[in-house]
């Protein structure tokens, strides 16, 4: 398609009075080897007492930025030794590019200092920034509280439509994944229990294990982890992108509290939906246990049902449901906070989403541990 490249080459011709002629030939383009600056410089400096070098480009073929860059650097190097370079023979395109590149001189104050702080400094900075994080978090919690108070007084404004949309997103839309995970969770619990309980001939107690396991712990916990990954991340990404697009600022300058308008509906929706999803997850989990019960252990459906009914109390259900509500609140708060405090770039949105999910999951597990201790000591 294109003609083969002619190798680039150069030649030096001494003229009179300490003047040299630098003849450039061939194609000086990307994709062709071009002589290195050092090499050319060395050959030029073989001659003594030079003060003026003129470029001759009669045999120059194609050229692109590589030649421009070469000439530019040659000029720089030579000017340090007070040798002037005459480029008037070069094609006018190169000359004007060189003029363009040298009109705005490099700003001296732009080069950033890159220093590696000492370990102690890093530790200190980490501590300070963690403190700042804690402060941000507590401030945010305070704002959420105030917003809730406004909501209860009927003063918080948000569009119903937005609220119901969030409800749809973090409720019904999550059902398929919750179904799958809970069913598998029930199967796993039953299977684990089955192997152990069979040793004692206590097969029927699989129903107890699954029912209590799902309602007290696993239902709420698995739903929370799914929702942290699904909805918490989506809150953070959505609000983060809105922050990047200055949509949040638009709310602020309109005098609309982003807290009431954007965050409150999300917190309310997730806190309301989590218990419902958890009840659903419990039921599906128990169904999963039933499948193992009738499939693997020859327990009849009625037997399994009655055993389940006997084994769990309303207290078991309600502890799970109560916990799930708290998890929902935590996930929504953390997701919204990461989003609203997001920086102004694509990577900041990524960081916000990651933070939201990681923090939510950590805090869910920690909260679960606290609840377990608390219920234990209260005897619930």
């Amino acid at each position, binding site marked *: 398609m294109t003609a083969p490249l002619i190798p680039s080459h150069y030649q030096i011709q001494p003229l009179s009075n300490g003047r040299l002629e630098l003849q450039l030939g061939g194609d000086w383009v*990307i*994709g062709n080897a071009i002589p290195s600056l050092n090499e050319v410089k060395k050959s030029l400096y073989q001659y003594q007492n030079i003060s003026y070098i003129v470029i001759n480009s009669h045999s120059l073929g194609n050229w*692109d*930025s*590589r030649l*421009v*860059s070469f000439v*530019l*650097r040659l000029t720089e190097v030579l000017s340090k030794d007070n040798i002037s370079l005459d480029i008037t023979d070069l094609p*006018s*395109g*190169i000359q*004007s*590019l060189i003029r*363009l*590149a*040298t*009109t*705005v*001189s*490099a*700003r*001296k104050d*732009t*080069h*950033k200092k*890159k220093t590696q702080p000492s370990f102690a400094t890093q530790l200190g900075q980490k501590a300070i920034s963690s403190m700042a994080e804690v402060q941000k978090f507590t401030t945010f919690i305070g704002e959420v509280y105030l917003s809730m108070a406004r909501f209860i007084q009927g003063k918080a404004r948000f569009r119903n439509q937005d609220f119901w949309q969030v409800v749809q997103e973090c409720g019904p839309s999550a059902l398929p994944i919750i179904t799958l995970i809970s069913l598998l969770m029930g199967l796993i619990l039953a299977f684990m229990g089955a192997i152990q309980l069979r040793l004692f001939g206590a097969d029927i107690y699989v129903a107890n294990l699954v029912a209590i396991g799902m309602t007290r712990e696993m239902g709420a916990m698995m739903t929370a982890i799914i929702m942290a990954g699904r909805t918490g991340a989506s809150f953070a990404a959505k609000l983060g992108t809105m922050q990047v697009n200055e949509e949040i600022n638009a709310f602020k300058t309109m005098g609309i509290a982003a807290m009431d308008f954007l965050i409150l509906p999300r917190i309310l929706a997730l806190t309301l939906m989590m218990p419902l999803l958890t009840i659903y997850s419990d039921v599906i989990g128990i169904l999963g246990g039933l499948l193992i019960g009738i499939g693997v252990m020859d327990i009849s459906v009625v037997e399994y049902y009655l055993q389940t009914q006997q084994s769990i109390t309303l207290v078991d259900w309600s502890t799970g449901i109560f916990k799930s509500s708290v998890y929902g609140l935590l996930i929504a708060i953390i997701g919204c906070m990461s989003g609203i405090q997001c*920086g*102004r*770039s*694509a*990577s900041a949105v990524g960081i916000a989403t990651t933070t939201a999910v990681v923090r939510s999951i950590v805090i869910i597990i920690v909260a679960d541990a606290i609840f377990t201790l608390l219920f234990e000591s209260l005897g619930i």
Partner: protein
Amino acid sequence: MAQKAHITVNDLTMAYGDFVIQQNLSFTVNKEDIFIIMGGSGCGKSTLLRLLVGLKQPKNGSVFYQNTNFWQANEQQRNEIMRKNGILYQSGALWSSMTLAENIALPLAEYTDLSTVEISELVSLKLALVGLSGFEDYFPSEISGGMQKRAGLARAIALDPDILFFDEPSAGLDPVSAKLLDDLILELRDSLGATIIIVTHELASIFAIGNNSIFLDADSKTMIAVGDPNILLQESKDPKVRQFLTRGKTYLSEQYS
């Protein structure tokens, strides 16, 4: 100077699904033209640009790059053509997780076999060309909007493109910066010998640098004028074109003519 066609568009229809935006578009962009795509808001200027650079497929018609039919060409030919295009997006579209130097170095590292040192020399040259010498280690978020645009331009010219596309280059720039950018575009056209295609509705730029143009109309969904914008201003009889090019002073200018 014999004019050689660089891009030829034949009977082009562009649509989103069944919704036709523009149809019956036929025009030629010559080598080293500064070709302006103009028209009111929402007439499909940016869509036409996306179609020309190969981001969106036309519903009908063809786009020829010299003698190659872009949408009939195979993947490899298409990539080859796209690589010779430099595009400056409206907001710069710099990759935010990379420094300016890394932004410009990426295409060079991908498509050439230059060494790291050679690449960094070229990067410095490109930044110098757009007046951003010394900003190599800055992240896009650390510089102003105008600087981001110029850095975007430096990235667009990284591979010495044959064709440079600009999507509203002067949007969001102050008049002085906009003028400097226009000068830069002219300078680059002259020195790189590139063909320039600009989507804009900045009248000052249109008249200052454009030497060929098409005018898209949203109502009739086709082009209603083609040619040098300065001549269009003098000679066009179409009220919509006149209104656009005179900033709505149709009646006034008719009184004078």
